[in-house]
């Protein structure tokens, strides 16, 4: 197994990403989009595609940069620091990973379009208020050579803007994953008014036609395609949350050093020092879990379950702590919309929930550890 240190390439990638994002997508850019009610920045996504980010998990022969999961996590982490709005997780990480599980010309073509930034994807998986793919009730009824999809999906991240949807539905003997255009007849998308100001949609499928060609992978066997995709998404989301944590933490430590009260910097108060120090310790420990998840997915994907759930669970609890401390230590100013900390708090909450919350992954860790 590779070492738990960033490689030289990874460090360079992080530096390069940071440099680009500080210019092209600082938090002020997020604020502008939020204020304008925009949930997608097409120009930014095109630039990311040009840098090979959209194709980070696309094979080179499909035009990708094929840098691997650890590299994808590095990018997600840097995006997290400045709350970058992009379809990176749904398209470049999850959809690409799903498509990679299938080796046919159609999938290769789809991967090429992801890498070029020409097509975006969203995953229409969940139906209830908690992440639970196994509880899918939406039906894909056999109809001649194809299927008819009817049902509702919720919390479809990037679902309002995506060009295509990966849709999970029940078929006769199991679950099947469909890859269909988002504008197909019978699909109605309603954009949700999300607290993190990002794109998520409720999608209604009313007798939507799907052919056998629209099936990604095998009928009744969605999970062999979907599971690696979800894992990749969970790990990258964990990395994004660690980035977000770092962003919030840096603001907080900066404030502790600069803000004066009762005649001295508040960072001189030991109670705050120890809480900040504890938080930093948690971020260090979280970083190890995320690095490990990337390594496991790249080197031993069959056995990456524990590593991924560990990373998502730990990143979630650390991010929640970081934004709580961030707001509290900033005092009243941290509560105002004019200040950025609230953005971090809201995004942390959405990240905590998406693709399985702390409990969901803690239960997985417990099961894999024998209790």
């Amino acid at each position, binding site marked *: 197994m590779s070492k738990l240190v960033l490689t030289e390439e990874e460090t360079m990638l992080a530096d390069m990403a940071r440099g680009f994002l500080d210019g092209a997508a600082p938090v002020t850019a997020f604020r502008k989009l939020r204020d304008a009610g925009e949930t997608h920045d097409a120009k930014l996504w095109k630039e990311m595609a040009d840098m090979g980010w959209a194709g980070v998990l696309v094979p080179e022969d499909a035009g990708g940069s094929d840098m691997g999961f650890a590299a994808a996590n590095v990018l997600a982490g840097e995006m997290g620091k400045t709350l970058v709005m992009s379809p990176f997780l749904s398209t470049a990480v999850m959809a690409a990973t799903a498509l990679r599980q299938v080796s046919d010309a159609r999938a290769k073509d789809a991967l090429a379009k992801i890498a070029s930034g020409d097509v975006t994807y969203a995953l229409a998986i*969940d139906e*209830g*208020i*908690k992440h639970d793919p196994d509880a899918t009730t939406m039906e894909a009824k056999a109809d001649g050579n194809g299927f008819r999809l009817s049902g509702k999906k*919720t*919390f479809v991240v990037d679902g309002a803007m995506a060009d295509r949807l990966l849709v999970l539905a029940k078929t006769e003997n199991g679950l099947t994953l469909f890859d269909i255009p988002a504008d197909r007849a019978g699909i109605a998308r309603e954009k*949700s*008014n*999300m*607290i*993190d100001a990002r794109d*998520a949609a409720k999608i209604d499928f009313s007798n939507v036609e799907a052919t056998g060609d629209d099936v990604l992978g095998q009928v009744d066997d969605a999970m062999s395609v979907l599971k690696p995709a979800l894992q990749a998404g969970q790990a990258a989301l964990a990395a994004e949350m660690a980035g977000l944590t770092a962003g919030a933490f840096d603001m907080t430590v900066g404030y502790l050093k600069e*803000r004066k*009260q*009762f005649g001295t910097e508040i960072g001189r*108060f030991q*109670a*705050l020092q120890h809480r900040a120090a504890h938080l930093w310790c948690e971020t260090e420990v979280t970083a190890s879990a995320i690095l490990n998840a990337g390594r496991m997915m790249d080197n031993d994907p069959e056995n990456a379950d524990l590593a991924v759930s560990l990373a998502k669970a730990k990143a979630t609890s650390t991010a*929640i702590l970081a934004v*709580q401390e961030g*707001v*509290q230590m900033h*005092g*009243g100013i*941290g*509560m*105002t*919309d*004019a200040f950025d*900390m*609230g953005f971090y*708090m*809201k995004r942390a*909450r*959405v990240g*905590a*929930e*998406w693709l399985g*919350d*702390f*409990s*969901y992954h*803690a*239960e997985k860790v417990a099961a894999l550890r024998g209790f």
Partner: protein
Amino acid sequence: MSQGQTAEEFRAELRDWLEANCPQEMRDGGMTEDGICWGGKNWVFTSEAQKQWLERCAAKGYTVPTWPKDCGGAALNREQEKIFTEEMGRINARSPLESFGIWMLGPALLHFGTQEQKTHYLPPIARGEVRWCQGYSEPGAGSDLANVQTHGADKGDHWLVNGQKIWTSYADQADQIFALVRTDREAKKHLGISFLLIDMEDAGVETRPIKMISGISPFCETFFTDVKVPKANIVGTENRGWDVAKYLLTHEREMISGGGAGLSGGGRSLGAVLTDTLDTLDATLRADAMRCEIDALAIGLTLERYKDQAEAGQGAGDASAMLKYMGTELNKQRHEIMMTAGGSAALEWDGDVGNRAGDWLRTKANSIEGGTSEVMLSIVSRRVLGLPA
């Protein structure tokens, strides 16, 4: 109700009155932001029932049940007050009126005001005719509340006030403000402050809402430019306004500690709230909910205990910092748990579980406003435990 009444007679009479007078629409217990009646000159009643309910309660003194009758109250004693809370809770009645006048200025005037001030200012508060806001904090001062820069220059019969306040709750909707103003720049920090009453319509008073992370603007910035404040508009003694402020902070702490979490008066069980939206609770969520419920019950009992002690003549004093700290931290935790239980539905503004996200974000201010949790712990450490400063 007469002084000679027994507790049970009082309860029976009250129950009959409530039955006859509380409109059905006011029996939904609604303590959401939308359900509250704040009163004031600019108040627009959300329904005829809300108006009726306020007027009927005000006529009986039930908007401020423990205040003296000549101040608009019903002069209930502690036992009667408990019965009042119980009977209101029994029919799930909404509070007829909430306001900073009731919570804050009222207690201050009852303690420090002249008889004339009491009968002048309090009855309109009790009737919901005048809405007050609070002007304590200033930009940059944060937890250091006594760091008051807003200045009142002595002009004989009035002070000429200049300066700026921040976190003035609902100042844009208030009729009057009670504010801390520095009236002696030479004195020590705590000894040159006066507690003044100012009309928001006075020339030179301007206010600007602050948008919060929860999307709403319960707070404002308020600016004073050459505002004339008559000398009669002072509560307590000149330059001793800090005494009034300290006394009020104690009240504010108790209020914030219990209010948000619905602790006094048997709030709904957190677990029951969670099982509204989820069939089963995962181990970590259930464990968190159980701990939170235990703390909520114990803190609720502590509020009761302190009220009982107060009646027995033992004021909470610095221990009110404990109530404020424990209550607000609990409330934040409670809303974190509710967000987790609400899943993706809680991630939308006004989604299927209501404005749960807004309420959650609002709680984050609980441990900042009215003295931060850190200030509360320092008060306990120094004044209760006697640890060296």
